[in-house]
């Protein structure tokens, strides 16, 4: 048999039915559910009188709409948000799926909770009505976002109708320079390929720089595969993966663990596997980066200057002009001279313990600059929050002038009250800098947690390598 990629192997092990035209029913091992994209799906089941096919493989948690302020026990003020969270509560209980309600310490952003609880394991198929499901690919799981009709389809049948994507290899060779993190890798890849560069592909990230990342870093890389247009991002499981999974509440135990690990060790791309597209980037060439525009592909090293529309070609010329206007930036301005008003550290990209450690290291013993009027740290889950509090990170952030919050999506997209006003410029560790993403008219610069922390202290976009 010809060599197969990791994607090929996981795919082959999950085809429950194949039609003559190649359309497959892919069996789904884990279905994660949140309150925004599921109400219409549960309603569809109810109307058709269908049960959830595999409630023990369906995990629900509210995250997008939940307040992150400390008074959230008192309930949600916004009526629509409250109705949506209540709908999830009702649906989860009525259909008997696994559920972590708002007041459960395990509640958090769905893509942080899944791995943390051990629901996400190598070789699985994982879906969620959320594009950043790609995060779970860090475990060597085939994980991607689906729409609400597909959520209903998975709830009803535990399968998804799929056609196979093409295989793309993104290799990051060598070592990363000091101050360069997983976020810089993933942003730099999108900068190189564009937001449509991965369309039609499943990406496997490999190479020494990827291998040396922790699971947290790998999740950051895979999280943004979707920003590059790919259906999913994958990293082959290895000793780092197994060490992370072992002992998690939902991970296999004892002999079952050994059986599972033996299978997981077969999950890698064969040397003679076929790749439809290959991209190689030298780890040493990656610098700490920020985005300047309103598309995640608008990436530049922090040492660069704001580009001009004329620096681009085709449709990108107009798009860049529009972005610069929206962002209130003048071509030629040094990125390091761009002042900021707000800092957001959190999201499913960078809301894990290691992210908070990196940011805390930078702000320790310092104060955020006066012109930074909003600075919040939102842990990705209740358990991340507890751990950060135990490690003293929360105190470091608070002493520096940050607000320390409860877990949720928060200012990543501001469906809850955590929103920015028009023209407020934010250094953000989230994944999307789209127009209006953090609040209508707000301006988002994406970067790593360390870079966001450095920006908070300097009051402007800053090279983390210059922070003493």
């Amino acid at each position, binding site marked *: 048999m010809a060599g197969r990629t990791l994607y090929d192997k996981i795919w082959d092990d999950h085809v429950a039915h194949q039609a003559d035209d190649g359309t497959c029913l892919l*069996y789904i091992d884990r279905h994660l559910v949140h309150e925004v994209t599921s109400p219409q799906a549960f309603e569809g089941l109810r109307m058709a009188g269908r049960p959830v096919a595999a409630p023990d493989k369906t995990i629900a948690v509210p995250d997008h709409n939940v307040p992150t302020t400390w008074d959230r026990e008192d309930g949600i003020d916004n009526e629509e*948000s409250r109705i949506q969270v209540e709908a999830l509560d009702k649906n989860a209980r009525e259909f008997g799926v696994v559920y972590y309600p708002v007041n459960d310490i395990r509640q958090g952003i769905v893509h942080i909770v899944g791995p943390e609880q051990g629901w996400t394991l190598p070789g699985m198929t994982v879906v969620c009505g959320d594009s950043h499901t790609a995060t779970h690919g860090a475990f060597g799981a085939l994980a991607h*976002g689906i729409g609400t009709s597909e959520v209903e389809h998975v709830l009803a049948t535990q399968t998804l109708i799929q056609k196979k994507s093409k295989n793309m290899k993104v290799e990051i060779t060598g070592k990363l320079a000091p101050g360069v993190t997983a976020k810089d890798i993933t942003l730099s890849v999108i900068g190189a390929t564009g937001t449509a560069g991965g369309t039609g592909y499943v990406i496997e990230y490999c190479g020494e720089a990827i291998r040396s990342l922790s699971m947290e870093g790998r999740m950051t890389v895979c999280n943004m595969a979707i920003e590059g247009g790919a259906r999913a991002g994958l990293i082959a499981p290895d000793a780092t993966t197994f060490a992370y999974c072992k002992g998690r509440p939902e991970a296999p135990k004892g002999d079952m663990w050994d059986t599972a690990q033996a299978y997981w060790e077969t999950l890698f791309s064969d040397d003679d596997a076929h790749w439809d597209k290959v991209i190689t980037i030298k780890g040493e060439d990656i610098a700490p980066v920020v985005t300047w525009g309103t598309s995640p592909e608008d990436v530049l090293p922090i040492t660069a200057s704001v580009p001009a529309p004329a620096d681009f070609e085709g*449709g990108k010329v107009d798009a860049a002009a529009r972005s610069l206007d929206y962002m209130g930036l003048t071509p030629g301005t040094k990125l390091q001279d761009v002042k900021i008003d707000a800092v957001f550290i959190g999201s499913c990209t960078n809301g894990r313990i290691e992210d908070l450690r990196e940011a805390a290291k930078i702000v320790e013993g310092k104060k955020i600059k006066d012109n930074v009027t909003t600075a919040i740290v939102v842990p990705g889950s209740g358990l991340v929050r507890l751990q950060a509090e135990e490690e003293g990170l929360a105190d470091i952030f608070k002493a520096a002038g940050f607000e320390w919050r409860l877990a949720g999506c928060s200012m990543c997209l501001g469906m809850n009250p955590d929103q920015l006003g028009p023209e407020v410029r934010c250094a953000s560790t989230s994944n999307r800098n789209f127009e209006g993403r953090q609040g209508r008219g707000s301006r988002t610069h994406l970067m790593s947690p360390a870079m966001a922390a450095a920006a908070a202290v300097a009051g402007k976009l800053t090279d983390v390598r210059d922070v003493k």
Partner: protein
Amino acid sequence: MDKFEKLTAIAAPMPLINIDTDMIIPKQFLKTIKRSGLGVSAFYEMRYDMDGNENPDFVLNQDAYRDASILVAGDNFGCGSSREHAPWALLDFGIKCVISTSFADIFFNNCFKNGILPIVVTPDQLAILMDDAQKGSNARMVVDLENQVVESSDGVQIPFDVDPHRKHCLLNGLDDIGLTMEKAGAIEAFETQMAEARPWV
């Protein structure tokens, strides 16, 4: 889902590239627990000013395009989130077909689940259709799914590809879940075999 009938309609030009799902339907409208009623909020931030008044420059606010059922848009349409609210909003506005040189994967899938036909054309073909769409309400484009061809108002015929299964479902208004349920036997057999092979799952 309604059947996708042959469509003769006004097409609105949106030459911008990377129109993302946050633009198509911003987050504040994702709080609904229904599928309907999103049409008035489609393209909200481009369509209305801060006070909620219509922005006269936005294409769908122009009289010629208020009744458009086709969008002709720049590359990488629908990138961003998985929100099915994006196709729901388009459909509720009356859009049944979107034509571009490429679409984001999840948005593309979501269209078919809601009876919207996304059509991929080459850059040259897009230029022809974009010009045609600029002509306003006097020009009607024809989208013939059965024969897989788009016809501009002056008769230029542009053939397009579509997945046969999806075409069948669109033309007949078929619901995927019902079709999959017919394969329950295969799914059960797979589950039995999987319980042996990967019992920890």
